[in-house]
């Protein structure tokens, strides 16, 4: 019992220290600036937290390190909130995670339920953010060392599970979904191989680093969507917006709560893993909701659970991914790497000693996250009305603006014009895929996972000196593979049965 008393007593003192840092006028201001900026860049397609934080780094040199990190973190999770807005309203996911939100969120918007979708996303994100903050407060060091137990073989099997999730993601033809995943994989192959030598680059140095996710996703989804909209004048005007839809009915509230809880759980669990787990959170949550739903055929046609689950998972993952950075000094994504860089410039060496050496920094930032999430909720709910109104702007005025911002956004990712060309080409591809009734979501998932999967496969094989049984010998990996196998059978079974019935009918 004493241990518990110590633990919670210590936690209280830590939180008190944290809030005393976060609730100063200065830091509240920087937190607000951070989340406001984050929302803004999240909403603007393509402009991501990386470019923004890189741009703001020089300013943060002048700030106190606690304020600096509070503001930068605000930008990061603020962008996660904002990113879903464009995904829902104009089918333009700027981040990996909002690809999933776009599937049902945009369908909801087309049905005149944009307000409800945005509300769900904001509330789900807030809840997930709150839970994640408490996870960090209570268990950060424990979780971090648990995450280190994840070996390359385990990560590989996790990615296999992601692939099964991609199959589940598909609405229509299973064959087309598989084709899309493979196409995504093939695109991911372009660039450096694990041994460093380039693949499929045709001696063009632009291909040496492979394709950029943002360019690919904005092209296939966003630009593709614009071409599609321009093709058909009548369909487009069908998008209606009603403010009343913002407030959910009792039935809708009941419908969104379980997915939010499940999404938060999945997102948190995957977000702890520094090696790219957070990416899978939204995909996994979506697949789970579709599996559990009594009406899986409604997914992809504007299902509330298809927004609530992934959005919560996404935000929980974003917050929880601070754990490896703050407790181990390991960045789980490029944004985190940038924040570590900011700390180094403030002459703070990130690493396992950060929590004990600079408690005011650690607890201050963690406390500010909860405050920031609250600010985001307050900030975003009234804005929903404004965003929905945005849809009433005539399309002929809207789309040139969107295209321009997309180009700036994609360019800002790595200041490379080639990414803009990629986006343009992918826009055409996205349009063709739409004509062929192929869904782009599995393609993007294949692209994201393919690269990670190969990396972990190579590493696992190298570490085991070429012994492939490592994937079934390690318990975590073996269980993940087993779960994937079961899930795959469950997905394929109806299709196989149908085939057999057809065969018997003849």
């Amino acid at each position: 019992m004493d241990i518990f008393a110590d633990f919670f007593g210590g936690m209280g003192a830590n939180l008190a220290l944290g809030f005393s840092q976060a609730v100063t006028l200065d830091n509240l201001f920087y937190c607000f600036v951070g989340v406001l900026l984050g929302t803004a860049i999240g909403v603007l397609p393509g402009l991501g937290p990386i470019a923004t934080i890189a741009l703001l780094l020089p300013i943060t040199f002048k700030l106190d390190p606690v304020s600096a990190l509070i503001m930068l973190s605000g930008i990061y999770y603020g962008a996660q909130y904002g990113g879903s807005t464009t995904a829902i309203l104009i089918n333009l996911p700027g981040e990996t995670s909002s690809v999933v939100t776009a599937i049902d969120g945009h369908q909801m918007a087309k049905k005149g339920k944009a307000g409800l979708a945005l509300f769900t996303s904001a509330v789900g994100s807030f809840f997930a953010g709150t839970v994640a903050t408490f996870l960090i407060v209570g268990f950060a060091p424990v979780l971090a060392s648990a995450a280190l137990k994840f070996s390359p073989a385990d990560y590989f099997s996790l990615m296999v599970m992601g692939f099964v999730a991609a199959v589940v993601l598909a609405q229509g033809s299973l064959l087309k979904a598989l084709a899309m995943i493979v196409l995504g994989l093939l695109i991911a192959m372009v660039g450096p191989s694990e041994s460093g030598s380039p693949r499929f680059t045709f001696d063009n140095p632009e291909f040496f680093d492979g394709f950029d996710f943002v360019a690919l996703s904005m092209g296939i989804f966003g630009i593709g969507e614009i071409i599609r909209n321009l093709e058909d004048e009548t369909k487009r005007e069908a998008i209606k917006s009603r403010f009343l839809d913002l407030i959910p009915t009792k039935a809708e509230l009941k419908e969104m709560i379980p997915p939010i809880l499940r999404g938060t759980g999945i997102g948190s669990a995957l977000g702890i893993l520094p090696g790219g787990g957070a990416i899978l959170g939204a995909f996994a949550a979506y697949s789970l909701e579709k599996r559990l739903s009594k009406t899986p055929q409604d997914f992809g046609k504007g299902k509330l659970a298809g927004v609530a689950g992934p959005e919560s998972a996404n935000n929980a993952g974003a917050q929880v991914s601070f754990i490896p950075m703050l407790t181990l000094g390991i960045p789980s994504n490029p944004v985190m790497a940038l924040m570590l860089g900011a700390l180094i410039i403030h002459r703070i060496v990130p690493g396992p000693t950060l929590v004990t050496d600079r408690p005011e920094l650690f607890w201050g930032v963690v406390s500010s996250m909860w405050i920031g999430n609250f600010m985001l909720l307050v900030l975003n709910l009234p804005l929903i009305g404004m965003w929905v109104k945005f849809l009433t702007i005539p399309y002929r005025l809207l789309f040139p603006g969107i295209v321009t911002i997309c180009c700036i956004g994609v360019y800002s990712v790595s200041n490379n014009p080639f990414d803009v060309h990629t986006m343009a080409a992918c826009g055409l591809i996205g349009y063709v895929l739409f004509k062929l009734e192929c869904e782009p979501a599995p393609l993007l998932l294949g692209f994201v996972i393919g690269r990670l999967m190969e990396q972990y496969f190579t590493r696992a094989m190298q570490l085991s000196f070429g012994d492939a049984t490592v994937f079934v010998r390690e318990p975590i990996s073996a269980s993940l593979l087993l779960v994937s196998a079961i899930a795959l059978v469950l997905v394929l079974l109806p299709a196989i049965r149908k085939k057999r019935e057809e065969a018997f009918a003849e």
Partner: protein
Amino acid sequence: MRKWLLAAAGILALGISGASAQNYPTRSITMMIPFAAGGPTDTVGRLIAESMTKNLGQQVIVENAAGAGGTRAPGLVVKATPDGYTILLHHIGMSTAPTLYRKLAYKPLEDFEFVGLVTDAPMSLIARPGLEAKDMKGVLEYIAKTKEKTSYANAGIGSASHLCGMLLQAAVKQQFNTINFSGTGPAMTDILGDRVDLMCDQTTNTTGQIKGGKVKAYGVTTKTRVKSLPDLPPLDQAGLPGFEVAVWHGIYAPKGTPKEVVARLTQALQAALKDPKVISAFAELGTEPVPQDQATGPALQAKLKAEIDKWRPLIQAAGQFAD
């Protein structure tokens, strides 16, 4: 038509830059960095850029042009107008790229003007927490026993940790089971997780883990001890005589940049390296500014030439090419 326009623009630009070389700089300067923001090289670049801004009276803006193993940024700088408003800060990779990349779009020794050396960042040899070796002697025994099953992590082809690994393998005359990661973060994860034996990386990346006692550390790659890690002996004295590698950084301008402009940049660099803020921030990174006589064009040119010659046989012997 396009060629003609480009030529005209070039002549125009030359004319302008020639006329304004005396009162350079009159607008902001872009410092290209070949790696992503947040990394060790970016940190060095930003510290120097901030201090050079004070001296030059114009903003020095850092622009990250990561990609192609650090060869994209030099390629862009070579094509920039040589007027001193686009400069490059690059590390040791400038000297290894000509061997690693057989189809490089630029010639490091011929296509640049040299502003000066910035710093020699030390590296340190660390190991997974479960490795039993107590000191470098123990590591050498472990390598002798484990042979090619000794695993070594690096942050990617051409990275500082990759170079140090090649040098280490040559020094102990043993091929390792080298595992390429995509960055220091993922590599460190598998070291901390007790899955990969060794890594030799920039002190910036290792100090936090070493001080936190999460990894084993055996020595530094410089010939003298490093102030931020006083307990670590130089590997040169700990059982690998002659072993020395440092991540040196230099500033370059495109070929044809007027002499006065390059001299002005050198002057600003030298001032930045005397800036107490830079010195103390460098100390935190485990490094220090080069002596003033090294922060000159000729010193950088000589260093680049010597380093190209040093790494070529090592890379060729390892059969490592990035294209």
